[in-house]
């Protein structure tokens, strides 16, 4: 029963490949193209299943080898690990900063690092500006709005001011401005 998917998949691959050639022989290009697509679609699961089976069998063989050698649990052999560590290539961190290389092959590193630094700097500037610039701007705005603000005492003249209009010698410029006596002939 487990072989049935394999049989179906292989039959599909063979059938599709055969019909690709049949349609090419008959000069039926559209059908050949469609059958080629089907062939690729049938190949993908079969190839994937083959790879997975091979990986599974290799893993199974490795576990079986450990079991047959004794009671050693699967894990790195210290001697092998020591040899690998001894043979590891020496890593030169920040080698791209070494001027002796004479090459400019570190652009990605520089871009990424520079981007992080610039982003941090921009964040700090934004925080500082939001804490300091806002109050100054609000103060300036309030000052500019003061020139067009309504007078604190209101626009409607009371009886005293109306009576004061009768006295042209009154020297209150605000009152004259409010009552419009400056513009009157």
């Amino acid at each position: 029963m487990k072989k049935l998917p394999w049989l179906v998949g292989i039959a599909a691959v063979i059938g599709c490949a055969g019909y690709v050639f049949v349609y090419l022989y008959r000069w039926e290009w559209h059908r050949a193209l469609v059958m080629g697509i089907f062939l690729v679609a049938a190949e993908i699961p079969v190839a994937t299943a083959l790879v997975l089976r091979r990986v599974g069998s290799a893993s199974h063989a490795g576990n079986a080898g450990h079991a047959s050698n004794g009671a050693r649990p699967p894990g790195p052999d210290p001697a092998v690990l020591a040899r690998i560590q001894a043979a590891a290539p020496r890593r030169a961190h920040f080698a791209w900063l070494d001027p002796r290389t004479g090459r400019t092959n570190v652009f990605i590193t520089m871009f990424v690092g520079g981007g992080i630094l610039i982003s941090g700097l921009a964040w700090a500037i934004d925080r500082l500006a939001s804490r300091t610039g806002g109050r100054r701007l609000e103060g300036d705005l309030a000052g500019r709005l003061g020139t067009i603000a309504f007078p604190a005492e209101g626009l409607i003249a009371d009886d005293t001011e109306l009576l004061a209009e009768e006295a042209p010698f009154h020297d209150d410029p605000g009152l004259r401005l409010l009552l419009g006596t400056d513009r009157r002939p």
Partner: protein
Amino acid sequence: MSSRVATAVSIVVVIIGVVVLREQTMTRHEPGVAGTATEVVVSATTRNAEPTTTNAELTAALVSICRVEVEAEPVSDLERVPAEDHRYRLVLAPALDEFDQRQLHGCLEDAAISHLQVKVVALRQLEWPES
């Protein structure tokens, strides 16, 4: 030893397969013979086609596409076969060789135009005196 035999047999089979495939698929055209023609009769059926298009229009479009793929000129219009429903006839001169016949046959029966399916009913040579 058995693996070597299997390898040798596989190589021979592959070589024979390539030769057979080449013989079957490689086109070798022959010059047309004057005074001959090829009559093509097709049966056309449409399904879910646009209401403004007719069976004859779709068939004429397909024939005009496939006709330019062969080395022959039509010497008659695409005409409806008398007393036959959805059957059309075209005569091309000079007569098509084997590969042109196969190419025309495949082009006509391939799904080149949506909603139209054409079946080649007859593809035969005729005597066609040159005028």
